[in-house]
């Protein structure tokens, strides 16, 4: 984001109706995770969907640089399966989490008006067995509309402290 950029909150290319639908979708996704409805969250991803939490700020490539998480739909399914089966020690007890998302901005729409690139800011609070912690950063969503439904084609989570030393992270952001 450069300083010469005009700062329209609502992109003129995005109609108020489109914006409202996208905003509700992002909120719905967060609600599913807040409520540990992992399977339903997973089903929001398109078949070619991916979930990426870079380990480096402004990371360009997930293949030649380490990532905190870089998963296609199959690997994401393993992550979700593990969360659900109740045998993961690091998720016992399961953390309670809440996500606050704001500053939602639709930064690009394709010409067919079927794909939307959305950027937002988030705060993530987690409580588990006597310990509370928080994360924050920027979310980048590439959303695709197909037959009246929205799908996540790409979700990228840019943690402000991605490079730091971390205790283990159990929950999707």
């Amino acid at each position, binding site marked *: 984001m450069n300083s010469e950029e005009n700062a329209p909150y609502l992109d003129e290319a995005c109609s108020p109706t489109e914006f409202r639908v996208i905003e509700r979708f992002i909120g719905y996704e967060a609600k599913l995770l807040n409520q540990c409805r992992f399977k339903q969250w997973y089903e929001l991803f398109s078949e070619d969907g991916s979930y990426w939490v870079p380990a480096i700020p402004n990371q360009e490539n997930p293949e030649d640089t380490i990532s*905190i998480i870089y998963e296609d739909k199959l690997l994401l399914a393993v992550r979700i399966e593990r969360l659900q089966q109740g*045998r993961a020690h690091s998720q016992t007890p399961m953390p309670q989490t809440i996500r606050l998302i704001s500053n939602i901005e639709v930064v690009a729409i394709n010409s067919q008006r079927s794909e939307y690139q959305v950027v937002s800011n988030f705060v993530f609070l987690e409580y588990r067995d006597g310990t509370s912690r928080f994360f924050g950063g920027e979310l980048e969503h590439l959303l695709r509309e197909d037959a009246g439904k929205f799908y996540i084609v790409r979700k990228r989570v840019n943690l402000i402290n991605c490079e730091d030393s971390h205790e283990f992270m159990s929950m999707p952001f």
Partner: protein
Amino acid sequence: MNQDISVKDLVKEDAVHRRVYVDPAIFQMEMDRIFSKAWIYIGHESEIVEAGCFVRARIGNRDILLVRDAEEHIRAFLNRCPHRGSQICRSQNGQVKFFRCPYHDWSFRTDGNLLNIPHVDGYGPDFDSSDPAHALVALPRLESYRGFIFASLASDGPDLADYLGPMTLPFDNMTDRAPLGEIELQKNRFRQTFKGNWKFHMENATDLIHPVRVHESAIEAARTLTGSAQINDSDPEPIQMMKSNGIAFDNWDAVGVYAYDRGHGYMGSFYSEGSIASSRSDPVFMTYKAMLVDRLGSERAEEVLGISRFNNLIYPNLSLNANFQQIRVIHPVAVDRTVVESGCFRLKGAPEALFQTAIRFLSTANSPASLISSDDLEIFERCQIGIMNDGTDWLDLSRGRGQEDSGEDNSMLAKGTSELTMRNQLKAWLSYMQDSN
């Protein structure tokens, strides 16, 4: 230092006292008697290729600057100003012409010597700017083996090659695997923190009875999603890694564990199936192998690629995996807090796909969000909590005791599920801790 501690009473042949993991006075003794004496890995030459390049490093709680000076000599200093003690450098790495303290602007050449003090007249006519007391504090000893740089805070002791003994092998093997004969440490690393004692991590690294249970959730999820317990070439590498933890105890036994003098040791490889096995023969690997044969000849290339080990432990706090070019350093922070730093190397000249496998291995095994190591770290934290209970003092390490065999180079070897390597680490621990010089 607490003089009342009689460390010899804390380690038996087959058990260890819980104080070894929970007593802050013991931790301070470890810093003084182990981390201030042993050779500690602090970096790789490929991180500081040009004059003025530096990286931050740690020895226990000491903050170190590892530098290639203007004459291209490798130097290591405490990251503090000799004047009032301010940390000189906050960046993790970089390239400089000189170091400058942000407090009173003292500056230092990359060889550590004082460059300038502003308004130096204030010290009077007798001030000697070449007095070593005004230079950055250099670590007493610094040596490299195959590009791996170690430092010792003790001015006397065995040289590095002696110290490593037969454990020079993994350094050789990782480097020899590069078609151009050189490896390059990647700048980006993971650092995982856990609320537990550093020794839990080192002991667990060759504990082969734990994976089946501790990593059960990842094993089961990987099996469920691929519909098979079988490890297939077509499974993504992270899934093959998860499934491999689920092999039978007989197979873990066959992996074997090996113990050497000074607390070093290693385990064999347990990746015996799929595209992550040492015996892989896919097109990428065959292209790579041909490159290695070009440089080393067929016999030597086979020998290099035939060495199949998983974790190679250099006591007290380094773990190497040559097969996947992985490095892991266990940094003690406090008696109940540890930071694990892990990275990987690029084999110079090898196909990019091989490097990407190393990246995937590192992310799968050592990311803070790893489906594998998260459960290890959780267990270390539970151990730390559990042994705060003082009802019973001894932790058992007797598995496989008396069933070891003697091997080459004064080594001991045992079935994979033996606790031989933990006993060996604690033997070295006791030897350091009893030496008060």
